[in-house]
């Protein structure tokens, strides 16, 4: 390990010497007629080079002053919230490796400080290194490399096939909707339709709540006091589905409403018909009885009286049948109305869930994508950029509520075989571990690229955070000629 460090220092010294030679050669090369202007430029350049050299000397001295990393030991620090690192450290130790891994959980801020002080090898974090932290690394000559392990995201969703008048919310709006004391009870208050709004989400003890609290509400230690008091909590996603769309049983019943309403109409019509038939039968009976009485008064022949009697008996039978039909029709109608009543109640229940909104981790959304309608999310500042949650936008970090599980190291640590071996083990296990933990796994090609950094077949990509907080990376030469794929993958 020491040999490797010495070699790197020697290389760095060589680079400094070359730069010095360049500075010395510059004045000798200038023989322009316009001496005054040239001198000014040359002086400025010389001063610039001097300053740069001084900086480089400082960086070099700071780099040389970094503590040597102990052989056979690997130090990791960072956050353990939704981290695959502890389990993979255990799994790696179980392989019988001779490397001792010290895993601490001092938080991401402290961990990046330690990394840039050369005291640890890896940071396990849910956020990329910040510009100021990166500056600290650069000031001691440490280049930073980040390995993505997995991703996760919070999806904000209403029920599928419903609409509250908009498709996109800003991160600020989402925060306002869920935060404690939020006055927002109607979607119109965030510029959408006049639809009542109710919010829901998992219980405090869930990992989802912790992720939501940190990544959306910006809470350092999420607690129920961070969210509004009418926040509907659920134990599992089955309850979440009942909250957001009424649940499968109610939906099934509600879906039958049109058919049952039609059926009730048919049975009502049949009852009306049966009642008419009964009324006709009664009329016929009255007529038959009157005719029979008239036959007695008129002293008709026995044969005619027999006919009158037969007519009366037939009328009685018809009336009885008609009565029974009315009775049966009433029963059928009552049953139909009961069924319709159940369906109506279910429909009202389901209808009242319009405007209910929950947050869910992307893995839950993927499982229930046919029942959820996610919002696109935009950052509140700058040009609107409503990003739909998808594997591509989450893995790429473009979806605002996405978070990347990262392992950050330095090129100095990456030269150590202990570090490379552990990261290789971690990466190889990452896809299965991510799937088990309901996270978004690395795409195959990303995994292969990161493994190639370890094998030396591809130069690792150096992280360069922008001053505005965005993170850029050095170009991968083999990627530069390739058109960026059209990653806006619309979903069903």
């Amino acid at each position, binding site marked *: 390990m020491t040999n490797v460090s010495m070699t790197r220092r020697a290389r760095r010294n060589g680079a400094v010497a070359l730069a010095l030679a360049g500075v010395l050669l510059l004045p000798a090369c200038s023989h322009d007629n316009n001496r005054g202007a040239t001198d000014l430029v040359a002086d400025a350049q010389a001063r610039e080079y001097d300053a740069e050299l001084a900086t480089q000397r400082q960086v070099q001295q700071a780099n040389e002053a970094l503590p040597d990393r102990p052989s056979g030991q690997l130090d990791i620090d960072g956050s353990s919230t939704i981290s695959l690192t502890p389990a993979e450290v255990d799994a790696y130790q179980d392989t019988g490796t001779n490397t001792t891994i010290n895993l601490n959980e001092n938080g991401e801020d402290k961990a990046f400080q330690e990394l840039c002080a050369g005291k640890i090898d890896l940071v396990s974090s849910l956020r990329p290194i910040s510009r100021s932290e990166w500056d600290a690394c650069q000031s001691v000559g440490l280049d930073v490399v980040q390995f993505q392990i997995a991703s996760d995201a919070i999806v904000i969703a209403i029920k599928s096939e419903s609409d509250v008048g908009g498709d996109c919310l800003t991160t600020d709006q989402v925060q306002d909707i869920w935060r404690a004391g939020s006055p927002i009870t109607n979607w119109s208050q965030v510029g959408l339709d006049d639809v009542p709004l109710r919010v829901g989400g998992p219980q405090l003890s869930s990992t989802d709540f912790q992720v939501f609290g940190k990544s959306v509400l910006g809470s350092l230690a999420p607690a129920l006091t961070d969210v509004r008091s009418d926040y509907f909590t659920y134990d599992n996603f089955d309850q979440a589905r009942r909250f957001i769309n009424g649940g499968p049983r109610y939906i099934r019943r509600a879906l039958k409403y049109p058919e049952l309403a039609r059926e009730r109409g048919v049975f009502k019509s049949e009852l009306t018909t049966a009642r008419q038939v009964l009324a006709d039968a009664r009329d016929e009976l009255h007529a038959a009885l009157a005719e029979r009485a008239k036959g007695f008064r008129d002293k008709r022949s026995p044969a005619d009286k027999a006919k009158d009697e037969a007519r009366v008996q037939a009328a009685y039978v018809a009336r009885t049948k008609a009565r029974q039909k009315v009775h049966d029709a009433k029963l059928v109608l009552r049953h139909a109305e009961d069924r319709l009543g159940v369906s109506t109640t279910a429909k009202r229940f389901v209808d009242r869930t319009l405007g209910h909104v929950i947050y869910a981790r992307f893995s839950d959304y993927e499982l229930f994508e046919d029942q959820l309608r996610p919002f696109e999310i935009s950052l509140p500042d700058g040009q609107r950029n409503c990003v739909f949650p998808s594997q591509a936008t989450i893995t790429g*970090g*473009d979806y605002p509520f996405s978070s990347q599980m990262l392992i950050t190291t330095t090129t100095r640590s990456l030269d150590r075989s202990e570090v490379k071996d552990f990261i290789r083990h971690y990466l190889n296990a990452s896809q299965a571990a991510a799937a088990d933990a309901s996270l978004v796994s690395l795409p195959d090609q990303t995994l292969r690229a990161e493994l190639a950094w370890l094998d030396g077949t591809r130069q690792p990509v150096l992280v360069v955070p922008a001053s505005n907080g965005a993170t850029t990376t050095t170009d991968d030469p083999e990627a530069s000629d390739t058109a960026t794929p059209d990653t806006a993958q619309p979903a069903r």
Partner: protein
Amino acid sequence: MNTRRTRAAAVLVALSVLALAGCGGDDNDKSSKSDLEVVVNPNDAATGVPVPERRFFAEDSPWNTRIDDEGVDPKSSQMINLARERVGVVQHVGGGQFYRDRRIVDKGVYINTERWTTAVVAGGTPTKLVCRQLVCGDGAKTTVLSIPSDVDPDPRYDGWFTVFDVSEPVAYDLWRARREDDGSISYNYMRKWDLNGPGYQAPQMNSARGSGLPLFAGLIRPNELRAGLISHALAISVPGPAQSVFVQPASATDGNGRVNSLPEGARIRLKANVTVPTPIDPITHKRIKLTAQQKRMSDAIVAALRTYGAIVVDRAAVPTLYAQRDVTNDMISGNELLGLHLEDFEVIKLGQRYRFPPEDEASLGLLTTPSSSASPTSSPSSSAGAGQ
């Protein structure tokens, strides 16, 4: 907000005989107005013997070629069987963890006429289009289109919307589109299609559909139903299209079925010996009585499924065909072909299979750590039909 969902006066587009035949000629033709004919109301337009609408795309487009004599793929039965598998979600007894479950969907073929199908419009008033992302596919160059003011995308069903530009033979597919209060239409993604083009794109290109195919391709259109003649392949969605694999004409996939299942882009056709049984209502389990008109129109669809077949464009809960939104639901109810099942189809020999996303060496370097690129969702294609 979005309450103006008047559909009665929905606009449909018919291409005149000359529209496609005359395009593809010299460049001078391109500057002149195309022969796209717009029928504002199919009921008003129906005089005399109905004339079927003209076909979209070039004559040799996969959408427009017959396949009744094409060979059957050796793995046809296996793919069809796997395509019936729907990935579901089941909760362990006692609550707690959910796990994915695969179930065979035995439902018949449904035709979407209102929900989850595409409205096709043309003409109308100049309407501002607003992309909600920094870049929305082909949206950068298209900010105003003529759109009828009384036909809106339906956000409840992913806001599928197709706008024809009658000044040149192109169409624009919109995804997650919505009519805003100010009359503009906002959307999340746009793809422009050349109506004289092939009707599909180069591999790995996305569109408003997960398969990379046009939303409006393979739609059953009102005048086709009226005329009883459909002369193109239909779009079909199946419960479990293959994941990570597609064949052309698809150029991407959102399939979630088994890898050996029917890939998006595959072409299937009705077997020659199939007769369509009377449909059974899935709720009441009673036979559905079809009117003479429904029978005639479903005969036309069945004939198209046999001669032109259907191209797998998406995944859906049940095997699904698509009829143009707003203007077909008074002709068919959607349940006419419930007697047909996926087993009644066979797969035409597949072409080259493509992986999605690609795993070629060039894309290996595409990175990994969070990127600051302004728009990861931008499209490399700003032209229509990036195709072949």
